């Protein structure tokens, strides 16, 4: 079998419906060749369905899937140059580790399948257990065997379906780093499905955030975090404080906003033209507790409030600060030697105008917050 010309993975208008339920809705996505791409979203958002359609295990109801300039929508799973690392690993219990890894090569009648399989096992540092059966391995080892079994075929796209979900926290961290190293070593396109935002941010070059079968936003981790485009993304990736604001004036590069009678600022390029009402967002760690007399740049935004809760986590202290209109803001203060504030203390919060972001006012301010709380509770 000759090396096929491979390229980007493209999904155009892909929709998957089950009876009356739409799992994936009009998905358009380009995943560049050689990238580490994460599909991130809460359970039931359609990310696994998307992955299964790319693998060929499910058929899209409408739409096409392309690899390079080849339309693979109609091909069967075994005809696609795509391999999957299953959530349950799905190692063949009756075959040795070596035979598991060589399975794909054998089916394609690759001549030196034994040697290539050993090579892949060496890549995941498991060459010494090649003769064992999957049942004799720990979860972490099985995970690496599943990875080797997929990588060894040098697929155009490697799909990972929550591959670290069954591992404990420490092992998961270690595997995150290992996976990323292996990906850059072999240079294959990795598409990683996860509900863990931290995992996605740690590993992926590009993240696509999915919600209810649709794409919310696609971008690199920093862009998604600093400039979320929807309340769902703002709440699902980390935490956000969202303030109800109206634009009072736009002067030069700075817009003036009115938040419950307080004047706040935001760079004007964060605002869409003609917007008047919006959610002004700011991340908890961007907020600082400042003394009322502390100086600051002219662009510093200020709000005053009362500390209603303070919890010390070692790395930082998390505060809840109640504003005059009753809303509570989350504040994360790094443990950098600054004086802690006690519960009940009157405090002033300050942040740089450019740390704010604007979101459409017609969205639900709590979208995505609950999903994230559920998932972090489960892990």
């Amino acid at each position: 079998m000759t090396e096929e010309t491979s390229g980007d993975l493209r999904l155009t208008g892909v929709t998957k419906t089950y009876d009356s339920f739409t799992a994936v809705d009009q998905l358009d996505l380009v995943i560049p060749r050689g990238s580490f791409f994460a599909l991130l979203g809460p359970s039931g958002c359609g990310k696994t369905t998307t992955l299964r359609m790319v693998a060929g295990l499910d058929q899209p109801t409408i739409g096409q899937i392309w690899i390079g300039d080849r339309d693979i929508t109609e091909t069967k799973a075994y005809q696609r140059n795509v391999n999957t690392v299953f959530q349950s690993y799905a190692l063949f219990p009756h075959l040795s580790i070596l035979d598991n890894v060589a399975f794909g090569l054998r089916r394609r009648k690759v001549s030196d399948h034994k040697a290539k399989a050993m090579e892949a096992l060496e890549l995941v540092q498991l060459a010494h257990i090649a003769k064992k059966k999957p049942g004799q391995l720990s979860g972490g080892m099985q995970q690496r065997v599943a990875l080797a079994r997929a990588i060894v075929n040098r697929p155009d796209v490697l799909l990972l379906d929550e591959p670290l979900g069954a591992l404990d926290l420490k092992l998961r961290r270690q595997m995150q780093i290992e996976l990323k190293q292996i990906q850059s070593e072999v240079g294959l396109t990795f598409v990683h499905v996860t509900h863990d935002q931290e995992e996605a941010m740690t590993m992926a070059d590009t993240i696509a955030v999915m919600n209810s079968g649709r794409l919310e936003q696609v971008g690199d981790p920093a862009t998604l975090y600093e400039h979320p485009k929807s309340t769902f993304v703002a709440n699902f990736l980390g935490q956000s404080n969202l303030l109800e604001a109206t634009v009072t004036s736009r002067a030069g590069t700075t817009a003036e906003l009115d938040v419950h009678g307080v004047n706040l600022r935001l760079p004007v390029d964060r605002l869409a033209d003609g917007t008047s009402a919006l959610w002004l967002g700011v991340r908890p760690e961007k907020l600082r507790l400042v003394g009322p007399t502390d100086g600051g740049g002219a662009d510093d935004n200020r709000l005053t409030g009362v500390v209603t809760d303070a919890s010390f986590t070692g790395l930082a202290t998390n505060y809840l600060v109640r504003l005059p209109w009753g809303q509570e803001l989350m504040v994360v203060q790094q443990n950098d030697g600054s004086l802690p504030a006690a519960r009940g203390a009157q405090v002033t919060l300050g942040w740089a105008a450019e740390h704010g972001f604007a979101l459409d006012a017609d969205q639900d301010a709590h979208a995505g917050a609950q999903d994230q709380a559920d998932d972090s509770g489960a892990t």
Partner: protein
Amino acid sequence: MSGPVADVAPAAASGLRRVRRNYTPYLLLLPGMAWLVVFFVVPMLSLGSQSLQTGTVDTGYVLTWHLQTYVDALSRFWPHFLRSIVFAGTATVLTLLLAYPLAYFMAQRSGRWKNFLLVLVIAPFFTSFLIRTLAWQTILTDNGPVAALARSTHVTDLLQWVHLTSNDSLMNSRFAVICGLTYNFLPFMILPLYANLERLDHSLVEAAGDLYATPIQTFWKVIWPLSLPGVVGGTLLTFIPAAGDFINSRLLGNTQTVMIGQVIDSEFLRVQDYSTAAALSFVLMLIIVVIVAVYVRRAGTEELV
């Protein structure tokens, strides 16, 4: 899978024994052991002794260690042994071919119909074995629709050509006996296969497809090897009783299809040559044990999970 579970019990028992003698396990074993002694060990010894005795029913039997009985029995009835093995083997292969797709469908694809289908498989057991076999006389009867269809489609010619029947009818032939055996033992093949295939993790089938295996390769490389314990269990449950069966050949066969079970039956009850009947029983048991031992070893089930 059952390894660790099985290991726990003796370990716990020995731990207790160190504190004080614990007779509970032996007491629990007692009824089963007693049953085995009374209804298996004693009859076996009696049968073994009977096969080495000489005499008649009227004058009584004396143990003379007359091994010639075995030689005579084998030389007279070896074709019946062979026929029994061939018939039972054929029926076993047929039940496997019929049961495997059915069990796979029931276990993996039937969804909420699963329990209903299981009931259908077991339903024939509500009728007596004898009645079910007699029903096949009606099914295969000369002026019935099945025979008419077989004649019009020249299936009867085909059956004659492969020597499963000797004339235009289906009844009283090798064909009918094998049909009866296959039908009667089919549930014994389906149930172990079903129990095994139900545990098959469907993601393994998907993984094989993902790794370029065609559906046929997926079957032979993944599904079949993983289902071998079920296949071995089912074939044993079918072959062993089928080899000793004496109802099907009597009700559906002719004088040329007599199986060894039928011979033993008539030697005991009609001819009343107890020694020959006992010797035949022993030889049949020995043959089955050897066949099963070779088969299980070749299937290599102990290596499977």
